[in-house]
């Protein structure tokens, strides 16, 4: 019997994979893709509990998260384009002048 637990564990694995991608990769584009993995993990979690509790709110929240992910991708990729103009590269290490 597949319950919410299975989905939660799958979503956690996806989340940590995305986290590893964000921490380890230097390429801005790949970092953003890992971020999308994290969004997906959050959605999977919401859907799992929406089904377990038979509460539709989880699905509505997931739609909002997808919207925010789309906006985030648009802005994030805009940042990549700006970085590309400024530094002629997409490596995140090159954008450390703010002193992080």
């Amino acid at each position, binding site marked *: 019997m597949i319950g919410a637990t299975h989905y939660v564990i799958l979503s956690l694995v996806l989340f940590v994979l995305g986290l590893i991608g964000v921490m380890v990769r230097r390429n801005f584009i790949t970092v953003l893709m890992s971020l999308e993995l994290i969004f997906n993990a959050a959605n999977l979690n919401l859907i799992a509990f929406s089904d377990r509790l038979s509460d539709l709110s989880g699905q*509505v929240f997931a739609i909002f998260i997808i919207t925010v992910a789309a906006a985030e991708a648009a802005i994030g990729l805009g940042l990549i384009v700006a970085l*590309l103009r400024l530094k002629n590269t997409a490596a995140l290490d090159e954008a450390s002048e703010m002193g992080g």
Partner: protein
Amino acid sequence: MEFLTAHFVEIMFYTLAALTVASAVGVVAFRNPVHSAISLLASFLFVAALFVMRHAEFLAAVQVLVYAGGIMVLFLFVIMLVNVKRLDPEQVFLSGKAPAAVAAGVLLGALIAFGYLAGSLGPVGPGPEALRMVDGAVAGNTEAVGWLLYRQYLVPFEVVSVVLLVAMIGAIIFGRRDAGLEEGGGRMEQ
């Protein structure tokens, strides 16, 4: 065949979960960003199938339309803008990041333990029929989502349009040629 029909849900879940995790690993591990993007696309589609298995049919369609149809196009456009050949190969990949890896592993363990408790001990709802109810009558998942979204979640829905507006304006400003982004902060001609 009897085994297949009797355990269809289990077989589908484990197959899809394995494929999702494999393609997610691909996103993180591939060095060529185009390969990462294709791997990400595959993981989006597998997650959409998992949504269907959890009675979220409308959300699965949204996942395919927005993620696979929209966001992936955006990613591939930018990869082409960045010019794949000039992206330096990442020599430092996974080196000197051992503390981060250990931290991620510990975090994964803790989260799995917590998720197991939350997913197996919490309350249980009446059943998947409730995900299709509109006003007490059984309709479809899309109808039920619309009914909830446009009545109970009215304000968040209107705020979403502001989020989209900000995304649009932000992208246009970043993409402008005279955004004052040249080296030294000087504005470009024109």
